């Protein structure tokens, strides 16, 4: 309360700073030398991260409400647009800031930053993500959603000369634009029914009402639109093509929860059936992602499927709809998010230094990149919930929540997905650094040109390194400079590419070693009535916070949790070993044949993806009807 006066200026600044930085980048970067451009972009991203961390600290005990332009609610009606900042929202915003900073540091002197466009895009993406995480207004949520989407499309298709990222960008853009339209329609219907766009107000208006057809449709459209962006099965087909822009699906997932929680949870009928819907989608996503990850040879696609599988796990945690499950999911999100980002950056180093991202082509060529190898292996182990890291704490909470909800078999599903997806990454690491495994893919239906697009990308990268101008239309001068710099540095990996992934993993370790983090996470979920009171009611009085959630902290429970996590890590290593062992070829061929139908479904054709989207929405609508009536 005492900090409100000074921190209230921070709130709009957390969005204004990156936007201002982006404008600076886009407008004035031609004036600045290259090092200045990179430095300013990194400084802006780090400043934004700091601001959101301050917000997270100040909102720990009660939500902070900020009304733009001073439009306070009149009587009981919310007139203006507000930011409703809780520790969860601010935490997600901080994660986005951290990952953006790491990406910008990583891109130092690697990315062609002529005219500052790339940096401007990243900063706008960051501003929109922060806006998305902090806002309490439904339409603002939609606008931020679309802005995140547009900048993500642009960043994905940035290297527009290469065919694979380009087609990936189109698939991404088409499916996610359709998702945006769904969200817009849902928002429109809710506005029509309740006459307000403020989340808290809508929630109040809908409290106690029975869900009629319009609300069911609005619910299905809103949820469906968000799930498309979150890459949940069956809306996930765009993700491997878009090479995983890391923090979006996760932030969106928590937005789904926020919207459900504030808007729809007051409807008469309880929350039981919705739980089943989310759990079902989550389990499906986790399993499909894990299986597809094992089947991949191209490292970036593999990581995209690993991301998807873990998102399914978060969805399971969220679908339990208990504060404990949500707390576990949020800790997992942070720990896994840091590790996944480290993995993506590590694979980027491989691409930069060895000009390939195919596991088969890179076999044995990992010599000389020991630090990157360590990063990738450590990242994979963290994803498998290696004990002192924060992801294992989250995993323990999740398991406890599943037990409380009477669904202990979910733990097996989660363990299986985690083991398979980490095993896939470890297998790749073993093949690349230790030279184990076959030199040919064991899949009968692929030739050596598994990903012709990626091959072309590799070839044109090495061609440019020779100093020739690429045929891809980028300005010749910068490409040449890049080529010369890169070929001069082929022996040594620049520190700016090696340190950020390690730093991210170290943060995960630090958070995991912080005692009491479970209590902080569990206490972060206030109930709807308190939220509504905070937004619409008086601002001077004290606000009742939700009851403290009891976190099982007995030594026996935590020891058991550590053993489970270690068991998962060992199992992942075993999976990797089996995958590489020459004696297990028959087993691998059988598994490949058995999952062939799943792989063929991922055809990369945008028409297929949209069809699945429509089918998924219909399914969601039917389930919502059953759940809410």
């Amino acid at each position, binding site marked *: 309360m005492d900090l409100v006066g000074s921190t209230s200026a921070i709130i709009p600044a957390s969005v204004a700073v990156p936007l201002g930085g982006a404008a600076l980048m886009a407008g004035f970067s031609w004036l600045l030398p290259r090092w200045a451009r990179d430095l300013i972009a990194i400084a802006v991203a780090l400043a934004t991260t700091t601001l959101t961390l301050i917000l997270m600290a100040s909102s720990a005990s009660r939500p902070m409400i900020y009304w733009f332009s001073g439009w306070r609610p009149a009587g009981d009606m919310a007139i203006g647009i507000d930011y409703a900042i809780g520790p969860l929202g601010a935490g997600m915003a901080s994660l986005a800031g951290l990952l953006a900073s790491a990406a910008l540091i990583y891109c130092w002197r690697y990315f062609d930053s002529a005219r500052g466009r790339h940096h401007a895009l990243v900063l706008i993406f960051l501003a929109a993500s922060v806006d998305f995480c902090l806002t309490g207004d439904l*339409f603002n949520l939609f606008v931020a959603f679309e802005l995140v989407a547009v900048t993500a*499309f642009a960043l994905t298709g940035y290297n527009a000369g290469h065919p694979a990222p380009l*087609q990936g960008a189109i698939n991404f853009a088409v499916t996610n634009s359709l998702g945006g339209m769904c969200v817009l329609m849902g928002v429109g219907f809710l506005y029509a029914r309740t006459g307000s766009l403020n989340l808290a107000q809508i929630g109040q208006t809908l409290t106690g009402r029975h869900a009629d057809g319009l609300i069911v449709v609005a619910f299905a459209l809103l949820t469906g639109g968000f799930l498309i962006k979150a890459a949940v099965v069956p809306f996930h087909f765009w993700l491997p093509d878009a090479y995983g822009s890391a923090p979006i699906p996760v932030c969106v997932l928590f937005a789904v929860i926020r919207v459900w929680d504030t808007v729809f949870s007051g409807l008469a009928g309880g929350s039981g059936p919705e739980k089943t819907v989310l759990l079902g989608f989550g389990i499906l996503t986790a399993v499909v992602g894990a299986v597809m990850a094992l089947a991949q040879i191209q490292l970036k*696609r593999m990581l995209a499927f690993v991301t998807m599988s873990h998102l399914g796990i978060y969805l399971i945690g969220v679908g339990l709809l208990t504060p404990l499950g949500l707390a576990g999911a949020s800790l997992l999100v942070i720990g896994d998010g840091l590790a996944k980002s480290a993995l993506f950056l590590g694979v980027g180093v491989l691409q930069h230094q060895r000009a390939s991202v195919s596991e088969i082509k890179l076999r044995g060529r990992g010599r000389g990149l020991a630090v990157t190898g360590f990063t990738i292996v450590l990242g994979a182990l963290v994803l498998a919930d290696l004990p002192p890291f924060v992801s294992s704490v989250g995993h323990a909470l999740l398991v406890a929540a599943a037990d409380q909800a009477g669904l202990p078999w979910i733990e097996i599903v989660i363990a299986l997905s985690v083991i398979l997806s980490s095993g896939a990454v470890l297998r790749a690491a073993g093949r690349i650094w230790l030279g184990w495994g076959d030199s040919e893919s064991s899949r009968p239906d692929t030739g050596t040109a598994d990903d012709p697009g990626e091959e072309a990308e590799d070839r044109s990268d090495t061609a440019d390194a020779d100093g020739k101008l690429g045929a891809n239309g980028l300005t010749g001068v910068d490409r040449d400079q890049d080529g010369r710099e890169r070929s001069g540095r082929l022996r040594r990996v620049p520190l700016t590419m090696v340190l950020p992934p390690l730093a991210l993993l170290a943060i995960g370790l630090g958070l995991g070693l912080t005692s009491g983090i479970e209590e902080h996470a569990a206490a972060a979920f206030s109930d709807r009535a308190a939220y509504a009171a905070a937004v619409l009611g008086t601002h001077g009085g004290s606000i009742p916070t939700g009851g403290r959630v009891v976190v099982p902290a007995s030594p026996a429970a935590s020891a058991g949790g550590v053993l489970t996590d270690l068991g998962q890590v060992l199992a992942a290593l075993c999976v990797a070993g089996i995958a590489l062992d020459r004696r297990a070829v028959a087993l691998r061929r059988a598994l490949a044949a058995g999952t062939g139908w799943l792989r063929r479904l991922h*055809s*990369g054709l945008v028409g297929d993806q949209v069809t699945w989207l429509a089918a998924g929405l219909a399914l969601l609508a039917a389930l919502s009807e059953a759940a809410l009536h």
Partner: protein
Amino acid sequence: MQALALTDVVVGAAVTALLLALAVQVHKRAGTLDPDELGATRN
């Protein structure tokens, strides 16, 4: 209400412009505008 509609028009315009830019790039690169013809991301 009108402000919302106008905001949405702007958002829609940005998305459409970006999709158009991507389509132009695809045509430059692959010579076709038929998405089924692009085979780069087959699994």
